[in-house]
């Protein structure tokens, strides 16, 4: 079932000219992927999903619905039990340089400085020390951590640590950035700031983002497309394209009736999973 949110959205909020059709080439294609864990727990059941290039697509669903499992299958970190994943036309057999992962718990090396953490992906690829430090420095400045290059993770706040995690993913210049609930471990102010910065990244980077969250508001606010997953064994229950016009005052968007309608609509669909 595909919901066209345009029908529910007032004209003022949609500007078809500003948003090219999402029918652009899919950068990631998930074809009837299923996952059954050892012990017979069926996490995913025949999921098929396209992720448009240059956009942010969110996997949204109730906790334990297999969003993270699907993301890690796309990342090549865990194998699917059935089905295939194609990234940029090539089948996923494991992790690859065209994908970068941002972890929920940051996954920084506590024994390494900020700059070494950010350069770690390049270090693994054998990029020369000077070159990778130069790239890392640029990315550190980009996420707003200039001056913290020689600090260690335990000297940073949670929000700053996730900036390091983001800089590390950007440093390897992957086409697809996979984000597993990246803002769930930071406070609300930082979270909202992160959301603005994420929108900026999506607009300016030309990268494709796949984002996992359990927050409906966050999903609607940042996504070009939302794939709503049902409870385990998970299927795609709806595809929603919020079509929010960006660039305005964030406070206004969050109060806008079109935005609130989409949030409400998703809530209605997810509500019955509560019991």
């Amino acid at each position, binding site marked *: 079932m595909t919901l066209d949110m345009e029908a529910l959205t007032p004209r003022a909020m949609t500007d078809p000219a500003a948003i090219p059709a999402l029918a652009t080439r899919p950068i990631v294609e998930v074809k009837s992927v299923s996952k059954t864990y050892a012990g017979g727990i069926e996490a995913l059941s025949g999921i098929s999903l396209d992720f448009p290039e240059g956009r942010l697509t969110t996997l949204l669903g109730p906790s334990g619905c297999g969003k993270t499992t699907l993301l890690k299958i796309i990342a090549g*970190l865990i194998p699917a039990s059935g089905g295939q994943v194609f990234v940029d036309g090539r089948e996923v057999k494991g*992790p690859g340089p065209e994908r970068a*992962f941002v972890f929920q718990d940051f*996954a920084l090396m506590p024994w390494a400085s900020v700059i070494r953490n950010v350069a770690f*992906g390049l270090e*693994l690829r054998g990029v020369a020390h000077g070159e990778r430090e130069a790239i890392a420095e640029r990315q550190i400045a980009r996420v707003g951590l200039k001056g913290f290059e020689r600090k260690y993770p335990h000297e940073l706040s949670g929000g700053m640590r996730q900036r390091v995690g983001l800089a590390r993913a950007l440093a390897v210049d992957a086409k697809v950035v996979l984000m597993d609930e990246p803002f769930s471990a930071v406070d609300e102010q930082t979270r909202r700031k992160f959301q603005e910065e994420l929108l900026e990244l999506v607009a300016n980077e030309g990268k494709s983002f796949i984002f996992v969250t359990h927050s409906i508001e966050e999903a609607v606010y940042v996504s070009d497309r939302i794939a709503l997953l049902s409870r385990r064994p998970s299927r795609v229950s709806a595809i929603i394209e919020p079509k929010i016009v960006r660039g305005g005052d964030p406070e206004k968007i969050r109060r806008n009736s079109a935005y609130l309608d989409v949030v409400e609509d998703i809530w209605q669909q997810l509500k019955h999973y509560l019991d």
Partner: protein
Amino acid sequence: MVISGVRLPMMTSLIVWAVIWEIAGHTEAGFILPPLSRIIWRVFEIVPTASFLDALLITGRAFLFGNAIAIGIGVPLGILMGRSVIADRLLLPWVNLFLSAPLSALVPVIMVLFGLGETTIILTVVLFSMWIIVLNTRAGIRAISPSLVEMARSFGANAWQAFSRIYLWAALPEILAGIRLGMIRAVKGVIIGQLLVSVVGFGTLFEIYQSHFLMEHFWALLLVLFSFAFTLNELLAGLERRFAYYAASR
């Protein structure tokens, strides 16, 4: 410690015990326990002698080789056991057995197999120190955050890179603690080995001092070895603290 408003330095209790020792040494117990002052005097007398320096060299060499072997085998073995369930099931009972067994009883067996030489002493050191290194490394590897390993894999780390850049570092606080505990056991190992073989290193000296009833010499030698073990422990504990800063934040 503070007594009636006066702050006493850490070593005060040592001074109290030294005074008690000194007094006891001047009673009839001095026959078996000579006064501390005379023992310390003896330390300066025997340390520069050729037989002492010779024993120190042999002991130091056995200690270093033994520890190098124990670390060289113990750390990889611990990593293997931490990573592989099969290896863990196969080896853990043995490691636990050797960790708690009265190893001195095994030294005569090594002696029969390898003779009354340095090899036996080195193997005794290995036997004493290796198991705690294995067990600590294993614990360190098992405690690694899975997301750190996933992170390395997602950025394309191969098996060697994951080992050398993630596993080794993440488990370093535990590995270092294991090495420190192993070295303290190795001090016991090297001395017990020499005492049982008794024709090598300090073993020879102890043998001579005891058979000629040179109690001052005997205690002087013990004092030197005790302070060596103590200093070693403090040095390694200091090194451990340098890496422990991140142990809590992994």
